[in-house]
């Protein structure tokens, strides 16, 4: 489903973020990327989103080379992905409902479809009762759950979560990870970048360890080893 083929990313002039990274992700997998800050985890995910282009190598998603796709084709790829960021990236002037609905508006969904789907995903993340509150009125954990609902509402093939628990306390961290696991159990592939050792060791899922831009380890039931 997803394939990184000898991917190297160098930021000018000499900063090597990734060096000849290769791996594949099958449909329905839950894959965690771990490593120190600056190891290249976020860069790896940004390449899949085509926020960045690799210096060399190729990123392939569902048979399409993401880095070779024309600019006007990128929206179509991104609509098959759902993204959760560490800083939530919610639109502050829109309510929780509107933040989630936005994705379906972008896709041209009708009002009735939007109403049904948004309510369903907000219910899944446990925030239906707070649908009409603005992000500033929600806690950090609640905001992240809204972000997850937004990432999920259009039923993407893959959810990309880049340090989703970075700004959260342990309780909210546990809730968010449980949510991601549940989403994965329903069939969505999840890519999680984190430097939270507890999260990784509890998950017991596939772990790819990055060190200085290289793929150091790829373990099916990995642990975060310092």
């Amino acid at each position, binding site marked *: 489903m997803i394939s990184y083929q000898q991917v190297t990313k160098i930021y000018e002039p000499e900063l090597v973020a990734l060096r000849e990274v290769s791996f594949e992700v099958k449909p329905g997998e839950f894959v965690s990327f771990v490593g120190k800050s600056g190891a290249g985890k976020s860069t790896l995910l940004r390449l899949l*989103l085509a*926020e960045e282009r690799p210096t060399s190598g190729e990123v392939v998603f569902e048979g399409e080379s993401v880095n070779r796709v024309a*600019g*006007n084709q990128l*929206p*179509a*790829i*991104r*609509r098959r*992905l759902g*993204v959760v960021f560490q800083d939530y*990236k*919610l*639109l*502050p*002037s829109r309510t929780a409902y509107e933040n989630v609905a*936005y*994705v379906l508006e*972008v*896709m041209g969904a009708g009002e009735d479809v939007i109403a049904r789907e948004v309510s369903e995903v907000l219910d899944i993340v446990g925030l239906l009762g707070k649908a009409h509150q*603005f992000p*500033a009125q929600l806690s950090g954990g609640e905001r992240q759950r809204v972000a997850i609902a*937004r990432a999920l509402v259009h039923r993407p093939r893959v959810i990309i979560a880049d340090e989703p628990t970075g700004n959260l306390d342990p309780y909210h961290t546990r809730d968010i990870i449980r949510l991601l696991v549940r989403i994965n159990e329903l069939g969505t592939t999840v890519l999680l970048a984190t430097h939270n050792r507890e999260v990784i060791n509890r998950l017991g899922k596939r772990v790819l360890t990055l060190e200085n831009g290289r793929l150091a380890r790829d373990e099916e039931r990995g642990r975060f080893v310092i």
Partner: protein
Amino acid sequence: MRDRSSSSAAIVVMVIAVSLFTFLVFLQGFSSYVVASIENRIAISTYFTDEASEQDILDAKEAIIKMSVVRQVEYVSKAEALERFQERHLQDDVVMESLVAVGGNPLLASLSIRAESPEAYEQITAFLSTSSFAPLISKVDYQDRAPVIQRVSQVSAAVRVGVFLMSFILGIIAVLVAFNTVRLAIFNSRDEIEVMKLVGASNWFVRGPFLVQGILAGASATGITLLLMIPSIFFFAPRLEALVPGFSLWSYLWGNFFMLLLLQLGVGVGLGVLSSTIAIRRYLRV
């Protein structure tokens, strides 16, 4: 919670920009009127000898008026010249007594010529000196009036250039200020644009609302400017007419209303759309 301050600021700045353009249009009209008024006072007279018959003079008038640089030619007969002279000097006993002493009518018939521009008088004078009726001409008083004509020409040109430069510079300033305000409004939306791009919005989906906002801001600015302009002109018009008789700002407004409205809409909406388009381009590269 909804941020309207950036949009309001953009509209306010665009009202200023549109108002400035409107002011410049009125300034152009006003300065053109003033320059034309000054130029209208200039004329040269061609005096004909007593041997020239009235028909000769009228034929000369026909020939002169055909020149593209000539605006108006007035024939002043000997009798009329005398009448005007007597009216001008009625209170001057010495002049009137001298006239009686000379006897008869010493004044000559003439053609008073007004050109389209001060620069044309030299050309007209040259034409007169080489024309077929040159032998009938006693004098052309261009040389006597040349210094004044030249001065008026310089002042007119300076006013035109000055108004043009001022319009150009103020116009650029207005555009830059409005552009930066719109850019700031869009800058404040950069997070929103980033999210839009990352969830798969196409460039036009992202661009569209900002273009519409630009159009609406421009149209709103035009409407507000009109609402402010009409009572302002109503107030200032009589005061300006007292200073410069003959130029009615109020009449100028209504005489050019639709042109002005189109210009304002063009400037307002154009500025809004152009500013939005340029400002948002850098954020569409995500």
